[in-house]
C-alpha cells in the first residue's frame, strides 16, 4: 500500500480543517462583539469547506493513484517514534469529507433559525465549527495519532454541545456521561496505538496495513478488540451505548449533525479504515458482527417503548449504526455496504432530527409524541420531508434504505452455516421492528387526533431558513441510496477492496420479498395500533415493555456495578488517606523527629518541635555517616 504525495491543488487540503477551526477561534475570541454576525461566519466556513471538499474530490477522481497524503509538520519525533501532522485524502476520507461538510452546511444553516432566540447562539456556532474541524481531522489524518487527535476533538465538541444548556443539571450530567463513556473507549484506542508501536514501530496507516501480516493472530485480535472498544464508545454500541440517548439534552441541530449523521459514525469509519486489521482475523470479525447484531436489536426494542421524539430517534441511531457495525464486521464486500448505509443514514436521520426540531419549534419545545397528533395539517413541509425520512429508514423501494440497508441483510445471510440464520435473522427482525417504532413515531406525531397541551393553539411551520435544509435533506433521503448503491462501492474499491456478489442460504429475491414483508407488517401493525392516538400518560405494562422503557436495565447495571461502588471506594479512600496514610507517615515522621513529639503539637509549639527535629535529623546524619564508615550498611 502506497500513498502518493499531494501535489497541486490537493496540497492545500489542510484548509478543509483550518477554515472551520479559524472560524471557531474567531467566534470564541471576539466574544459578544461577534454576536450579530457570528452565526453567518459559522455557516460560511463550513460551506467553504464543502466547496473545497468538492473541488478536491473531483481532483482526486482525475488521478490514477487515488490516495494522496500531505505532511504538514513533524508532530513528535522521539527515538524511533515519528508522528507527523499528516493528512490523507483518499476515496474513503473523500466521501466522509463530503458528508460532514455537505450535511454539516445544511444543519448549520438550519441552526441559524433554530437558535435564533438563544442568547448563546454565537458560542453555539463556535462549538459547532470546532466540531466540524475536529471531525474532518479525524477522517483526514494519515496515522492513528492524528485520528486520535480528531477523535478527542469531536469528543470535546460533543461534550460542549450536549451540555450547551449546562445550567440545566440534566444537560450537564449528560455531557459528562458522554465524555466519560467515550474515554473508556478512548483508553482502548490508545492501548491499540501502543501495541502498534511496540510491534510495528509505527502508527502510519500505510505502514501498519502493509505489515499486518507480520503480526501473530493474538496481537491482531487484541489490537482489533481494543480498536473496537474505541469504536463502540464513539458510536454508541454495546456495551458503551448508554450515553447516546442522553446526549439528546443538546440542541436538536447537535443531535442531527453529531449524534446522528457524523460523529457517531466515526466508529464505523475506524473499523472500515482499519479493514486490513479486521480482515486478518475471523474471530475479530465475528465479535464485530455480534456487537452490531446485538446493538441493532437493543436499539429497536428500546426504541419501541420510548415516547420522547428525540429519544426514539436516538435509539434508532444506535440501532442503525448497529447495522453498519454488522456490515463492517462481515468484511469483504460488506465494508462498502456499511459505508453506503452510513451515508444514506446521514441524510435521512439528519432529515428526521431536523424535522423533530421543527416540530418542537412549533410546539413550545414539547418532545413527547403522546402530546402531538394531527400535525400534518399545520406543518406541511415538515410533514412531507419527515415522511421521506420515514420511508427511507423503512427501506421500501425506491427510497434510500432499500438500497443501503437491505444489502447488509443479504450479506449477513451470506455467512457460513447457522451463523447466517443468526445474524441474518437479527438483521431481518430489526427491519420489522424498525418499521414498527418509526411508524409509531410518524403516526403519533403527524396523524390521528390532536393531543396537544393546553397552551398550544395553532402550531406554526418553521421559517424558510429551517425548511430549505429540510427539503434538501428530503431529496437526499429519497435519492441518495439509489444513486450510491453501486457507485460508492466501486469508488471505494482502492481502500476497501473489490465488490463480490453475496451468495447466501436464501436467494437475493427471497430476501427482498422477506424484508419488504416484515417491514410492511411492522409498519401496518403500528399504523393500526396508533392511528387513533394513544394515552397521554405512561400506562402500566408487561415485563418486556417495562424492560424496554428502562433501557433493558443497562443503566441500572452501570449504576450498580460502576457508579455506586466507585463512589463508595472514593469515600473510603478519602478516609484512608486522611487517617491511615497521613497519620501513619506523621507518626513515622514524629518518631524520626525525636520520638516524643506528635506532629499535632506543631499547631501550637511548632518552633520547638522544628528545632527538635533539626537536632534529631543531625543526629541521624551523624549516625548514618558513622555506619557507612564502619561498613555496617554496605
Amino acid at each position, binding site marked *: 500500500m502506497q500513498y502518493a504525495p499531494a501535489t497541486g491543488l490537493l496540497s492545500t487540503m489542510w484548509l478543509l480543517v483550518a477554515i472551520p477551526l479559524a472560524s471557531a477561534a474567531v467566534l470564541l475570541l471576539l466574544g459578544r462583539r461577534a454576536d450579530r454576525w457570528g452565526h453567518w461566519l459559522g455557516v460560511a466556513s463550513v460551506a467553504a469547506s464543502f466547496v473545497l471538499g468538492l473541488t478536491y474530490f473531483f481532483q482526486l477522481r482525475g488521478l490514477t493513484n487515488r490516495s494522496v497524503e500531505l505532511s504538514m509538520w513533524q508532530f513528535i519525533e*522521539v527515538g524511533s517514534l515519528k508522528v507527523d501532522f499528516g493528512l490523507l485524502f483518499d476515496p474513503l476520507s473523500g466521501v466522509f469529507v463530503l458528508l460532514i461538510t455537505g450535511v454539516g452546511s445544511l444543519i448549520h444553516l438550519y441552526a441559524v433559525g433554530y437558535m435564533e432566540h438563544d442568547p448563546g447562539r454565537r458560542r453555539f456556532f463556535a462549538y459547532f465549527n470546532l466540531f466540524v474541524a475536529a471531525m474532518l481531522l479525524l477522517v483526514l489524518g494519515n496515522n492513528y495519532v492524528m485520528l486520535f487527535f480528531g477523535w*478527542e476533538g469531536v469528543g470535546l465538541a460533543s461534550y460542549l454541545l450536549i451540555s450547551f444548556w449546562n*445550567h440545566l443539571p440534566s444537560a450537564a450530567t449528560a455531557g459528562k456521561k458522554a465524555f466519560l463513556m467515550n474515554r473508556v473507549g478512548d483508553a482502548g484506542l490508545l492501548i491499540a496505538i501502543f501495541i502498534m508501536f*511496540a510491534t510495528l514501530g509505527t502508527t502510519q496507516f500505510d505502514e501498519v496495513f502493509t505489515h499486518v501480516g507480520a503480526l501473530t493472530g493474538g496481537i491482531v485480535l487484541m489490537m482489533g478488540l481494543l480498536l473496537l472498544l474505541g469504536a463502540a464508545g464513539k458510536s454508541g454500541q454495546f456495551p458503551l451505548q448508554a450515553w447516546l440517548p442522553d446526549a439528546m439534552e443538546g440542541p436538536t441541530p447537535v443531535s442531527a449533525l453529531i449524534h446522528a449523521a457524523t460523529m457517531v459514525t466515526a466508529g464505523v469509519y475506524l473499523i472500515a479504515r482499519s479493514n486490513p486489521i479486521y480482515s486478518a482475523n475471523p474471530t475479530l470479525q465475528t465479535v464485530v458482527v455480534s456487537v452490531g447484531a446485538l446493538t441493532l436489536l437493543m436499539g429497536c426494542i428500546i426504541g419501541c417503548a420510548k415516547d420522547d421524539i428525540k429519544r426514539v430517534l436516538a435509539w434508532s441511531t444506535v440501532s442503525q449504526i448497529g447495522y453498519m457495525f454488522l456490515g463492517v464486521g462481515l468484511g469483504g464486500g460488506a465494508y462498502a455496504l456499511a459505508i453506503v448505509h452510513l451515508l444514506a443514514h446521514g441524510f435521512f436521520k439528519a432529515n428526521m432530527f431536523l424535522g423533530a426540531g421543527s416540530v418542537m419549534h412549533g410546539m413550545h419545545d414539547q418532545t413527547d409524541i403522546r402530546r402531538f397528533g394531527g400535525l400534518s395539517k399545520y406543518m406541511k413541509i415538515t410533514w412531507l420531508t419527515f415522511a421521506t425520512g420515514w420511508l427511507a429508514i423503512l427501506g421500501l423501494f425506491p427510497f434510500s434504505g432499500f438500497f443501503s440497508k437491505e444489502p447488509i441483510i443479504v450479506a449477513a445471510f451470506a455467512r457460513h452455516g447457522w451463523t447466517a440464520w443468526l445474524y441474518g435473522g437479527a438483521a431481518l427482525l430489526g427491519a420489522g421492528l424498525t418499521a414498527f417504532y418509526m411508524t409509531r413515531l410518524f403516526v403519533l406525531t403527524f396523524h390521528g387526533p390532536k393531543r396537544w397541551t393546553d397552551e398550544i393553539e395553532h402550531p406554526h411551520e418553521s421559517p424558510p431558513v429551517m425548511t430549505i435544509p429540510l427539503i434538501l435533506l428530503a431529496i437526499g433521503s429519497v435519492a441518495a441510496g439509489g444513486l450510491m448503491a453501486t457507485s460508492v462501492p466501486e469508488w471505494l474499491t482502492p481502500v476497501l477492496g473489490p465488490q463480490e456478489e453475496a451468495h447466501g442460504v436464501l436467494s437475493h429475491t427471497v430476501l427482498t420479498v422477506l424484508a419488504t414483508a416484515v417491514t410492511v407488517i411492522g409498519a401496518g401493525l403500528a399504523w393500526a395500533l396508533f392511528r387513533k392516538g394513544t394515552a397521554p400518560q405512561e400506562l402500566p405494562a408487561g415485563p418486556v415493555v417495562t424492560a424496554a422503557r428502562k433501557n433493558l436495565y443497562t443503566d441500572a447495571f452501570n449504576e450498580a456495578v460502576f457508579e455506586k461502588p466507585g463512589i463508595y471506594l472514593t469515600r473510603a479512600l478519602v478516609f484512608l488517606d486522611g487517617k491511615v496514610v497521613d497519620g501513619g507517615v506523621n507518626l513515622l*515522621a514524629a518518631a524520626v523527629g525525636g520520638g516524643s513529639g506528635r506532629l499535632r503539637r506543631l499547631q501550637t509549639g511548632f518552633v520547638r518541635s522544628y528545632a527538635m*527535629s533539626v537536632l534529631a535529623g543531625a543526629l541521624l546524619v551523624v549516625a548514618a555517616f558513622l555506619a557507612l*564508615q564502619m561498613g555496617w550498611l554496605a
Partner: protein
Amino acid sequence: MAGVTEFPFLSVLTLAPLVGALVVAFLPRTNPELAKRVAFGWSLAVLALSVAMWVAFQTGGERFQFRESYPWIPSWGVSFTFAADGIALVMLMLIAVLVPVVILASWKDADALKRSVPVYFALLLALEGTMIGVFAAADIFLFYVFFEVMLVPMYFLIGSYGGHQRQYAAVKFFLYSLVGGLFMLAAVIGLWVVGGQTFDWQALTQIDMSTGTERWLFLGFFIAFAIKAPFFPFHTWLPDSGAAAPAGSAALLVGVMDKVGTFGILRYCLPLFPEASKWFAPYALALALIGIIYAALLAVGQNDLKRLVSYTSIAHFGFIGVGIFAFTTQAGTGAVLYMLNHGLATGLLFLVVGMLVARRGSALVSDFGGVGKLMPILAGVFFFAGLASLALPGTAPFVSEFLVLLGTYPVNKPVAVIATLGVILAAAYVLWMVQRTTQGTLNPALAEHEGMRRDITLREKVVVAPLIALILLLGFYPKPVTDVINPAVQATMQDVGKTDPAPTAVTTEAAK
C-alpha cells in the same frame, strides 16, 4: 555567538533574583505598588535572560552546557559549579515563565493581610533564585544546599501569607522536606566518602562501588526525591500545603518545586546509581502506579478546590515516575516534557482556582455552583485548564502523557495499561469538578455575592494568556522542546545502560 555562550548565564540567573529579593525587601512598606512593580520588572528581566540562554543552547551539542566553576571549600572538594543539560534548561525556562505570571497573579494577594507587601514579593523572587540554583547546580553539595534553602522562602510564603491552617501546613511541609533532605544529606556524605572526597557530579558518575553501598545511597537520594515529588505514600503534606498556600505560591510549589524531586531522580539517582536504579525500578513503578490511580480517586472525592488540584498533581507525578523508571527514550522524554507541561497546566489551574477563591472567599466546591452563568469567561478558562489537566489532545500535556504511556508499553505492558486507566479517572475528576463549580443551577448564595459578578479582569487576562498560548503551542508543535530534552534523556538512559526495544514484529520479520 561565542561571546553569548561564554556569558555566565547560570550564575547570573541564580544570583539576579536573589539580589532582586534583597532590593524589594527593603523597599518601603508604605509604597506597596513600587515593590510589586520592581519585583515584576525584575522577573521579566530574568525571563529575558533565560530566553537568551534558550537561544544560545546548542541543541544536539554537548550534554552539559554553560558550565561555570568557582572554588568554594577546596579542602572538601566543594565548588560552585553550574551546568545545564536539556532537562535542566527546560525546567529553568519553566521557572522563568511562571514567576512573572505568578507575581502578576498575586498582585493583590498580600494587600488584605496585615503583613509586609514588599516582603511577600521579595520571597517570591528569593524562591525563584533558589529554584534556579537547584536546577543549575552541577556540584552535589551545592545542589543539596539549594535543595534545603529553597524551603525557606516557601515556608514563609505558606506560613505567613497562606490561608486557613497555614502554620500547620507550613511546618508539615518543612518537616517532610527536611526529613527527606536529611536522608539525602546522609547519602551525599556517603557518596563523598566512597567517591574519593569530591562532590563533582561528573567525577562521581565514574566511580565504582559495591552493590550494597550503591543501593543504600540510591535509597537516601530516592527518599528525599520521593517526598519532594511527592510519591505515594509520602504525599499527604502536599494537599495540606497546596490548600493553605496562596494560589500563586501553590502554583510554584506544585508546578516547579515538586519537580526538583523527579529532576533529582533523573540527574542523580539514575546516572550515579545505575544498577540500584534498575534494581529498585519495579518498586518505584509500583509507587508511581499507585499514585496515579489512588490520587485520582482521591481527587474525585475532594470538596476543596485547592486540595483537589493538589491530588490531581500527585496523580500526574505518578505518570512522571512511570516515565522515568520505564527506561525508554519515549517514556523518559515524555516524563521530562510532563514536568514542563504539568507546570504550565497545573500552574494555570491553580491560578484560576485562586481567582475563583479570591472572589468567593472560599475554596469549597460546595460554595460554588453555576458560576458559568455569572462569569462565562473565567469559567471558560477554568474549563480549559481542566482540559489541559486531563491531557486532551491539542493541549501540551497530551503529548507528554502519550509519550510516557507509549514508551512504557513495550517494556512493561501491565504498568502501561493500568496507567492508561488513569486517563479515564482524569476525565472523571476534571469534569466532576467543572460541573459542580461552573455548571448546573446557580448557587443562590453566589447571586448575592458582589465579587462573583466581576468576570475576568484585564490583569487576570494577562496572567492566563501566556500560559494558554504555551499550552496550545506545545500541544500542536512540541518538537522544539522535545529536541532539547531528547539528547539529555538518551544520555541518561545510556548512563543506566538501557536501550529501546526494537518493534517485535519487525524484528521477527527481519529474522525470517
